[in-house]
């Protein structure tokens, strides 16, 4: 069976909420019913087949021919795979419980927000609040793995609780702010206010940041056995981090944020 493919009939004028189009919700539905799914489009509801031409049968594998206005791709899904050819909008993989989302392009803010499990692979860039929580909430991403091949915006991992965010490009300001636990790793540069109000958790940096907050204390340079173990755990995923288990072991450890609980750590690779 070919993947169930949604191709936009015309350029979107408004943002569209595609959260009803997930493998969980489309399982065993005939083509007619899938086309009749109601989607929020701007301030009105429209049928899916008004916006998309729908081809294919396999509802466990969905493909969106993307647009920056497609919001909530894969929201709350628990199984199957969604592939976005091109870009996606905000809230991609929000509250994801399982399965896999692959985006060939870039995504807007709040990707993987409040995600529980599963895998998200973004081959382009990610916007602000990657793996964070919705405004006003206290619990960010709580499991799974997010891989960004490009760069990510500000506030990555705000209130992160569990799981891993692996960024192969750069990350913006306030990386790991208010983290409760979990892991964020960045190969590129990071912005200001790194680990702001971080309670626990690990930020692993391949490059020394331009500046570190004064509320992080230097704990010295160490060879930590858990790092290769952690990186080996990413084998089988499309990330450069999985190839670094033999090289990325020795780090300088900074503990903080001493203005918060102070049990978090920023680990900076030492060559």
């Amino acid at each position, binding site marked *: 069976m070919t993947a169930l493919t949604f191709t936009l009939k015309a350029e979107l004028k408004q943002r569209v909420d595609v959260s009803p189009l997930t493998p969980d919700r489309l399982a065993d539905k005939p083509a007619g019913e899938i086309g009749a799914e109601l989607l929020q489009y701007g301030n009105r509801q429209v049928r899916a087949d008004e916006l998309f031409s729908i081809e294919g049968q396999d509802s466990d594998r969905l493909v969106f021919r993307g647009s920056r206005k497609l919001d909530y791709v894969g929201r709350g899904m628990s199984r199957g795979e969604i592939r976005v050819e091109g870009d996606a909008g905000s809230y991609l993989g929000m509250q994801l419980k399982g399965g896999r989302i692959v985006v060939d392009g870039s995504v807007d803010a709040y990707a993987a927000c409040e995600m529980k499990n599963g895998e998200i692979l973004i081959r382009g860039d990610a916007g602000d609040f990657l793996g964070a929580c919705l405004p006003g909430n206290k619990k960010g991403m709580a499991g799974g793995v997010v891989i960004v091949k490009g760069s990510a915006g500000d506030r990555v991992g705000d209130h992160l609780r*569990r*799981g891993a965010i692996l960024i192969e490009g750069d990350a913006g300001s306030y990386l790991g702010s208010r983290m409760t*636990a979990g*892991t964020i790793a960045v190969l590129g540069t990071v912005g200001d206010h790194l680990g702001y109000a971080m309670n*626990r958790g*690990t930020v692993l940096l391949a490059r020394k940041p331009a500046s570190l907050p004064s509320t992080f204390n230097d704990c010295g340079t*160490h*060879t*930590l*056995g*858990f790092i*290769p*173990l*952690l990186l*080996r*755990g990413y084998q089988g995923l499309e990330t450069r981090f999985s190839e670094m*288990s*033999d090289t990325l072991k020795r780090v300088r450890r900074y503990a903080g944020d001493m203005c918060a609980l102070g*049990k978090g*750590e920023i680990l900076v690779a030492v060559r």
Partner: protein
Amino acid sequence: MNINGVQIDATFAEAFPMRATRVIITAQNLKWAYHAAQAMTGFATSVIACGCEAGIERELDPSETPDGRPGISALIFAMGGKSLAKQVETRAGQCVLTSPTSALFAGIHEGEKIPLGKNLRFFGDGFQISKRANGKRYWRVPVMDGEFLCEDTTAMVKAVGGGNFLVLAESQPQALAACEAAIEAMRKIPNVIMPFPGGVVRSGSKVGSKYKALSASTNDAFCPTLKGQTKTDLSPEIESVMEIVIDGLTDEDIKKAMRVGIEAACSLGAENGIRRISAGNYGGKLGPFLFHLQEIMA
């Protein structure tokens, strides 16, 4: 049955159900992995007084260990789940946590979970850090040489303890040489340990005693110095008897180990003074698993 001039008795070894787990100990090098593993599996020859039976299963290449360092896999057996959990935790805390550069991981993942680092983490006094990798939880406990990395739990499986065979020889050195050959061959078999010193026990026991307080006592029928004093099972030319006890994750594992062990002992043959292979047969009093020697060697 006769192999290379060695008589294989028409008897059986009796074994009993146990609970077991495997742990993987890694360190900076094999030398320090051995230090930790030998400490953890020390004083663990018999459940009669040690609380568990434990031994080193094999060396592990860095490619086989979770953290990519040289390692040792060890098996620990106890009579029940609670006693196994207690022994594993106590030994991990006193012998592995304390050993420089060590890390400790589960070697079995399917089965009922028992704590490994789950409670040891509190040694970190609040500075311990939990990490999840590959769907498993690990603890990083700060210690004076760096960090002690320990998996949260290991899994417990049903196992078999007390498989055995006896080597009867014309002299003590000959009995020991045959046992050494047997142990060398048996150590290549996975999923089994021979928990006694060097894998060999010279004080085989029978069930019961003339002293009411003792549940086991010397196996007088196989004591060569008592040949004229008790109902002996030894012929005049036998001067020394040694036993190899095997604990395994399954009865099939024990059978494999017994087979290669008996083959190796018999390879020395009658010309080297090896006369008989027998087994600890307690008339069905000891346990439900029966390993018939002649069937195993058929």
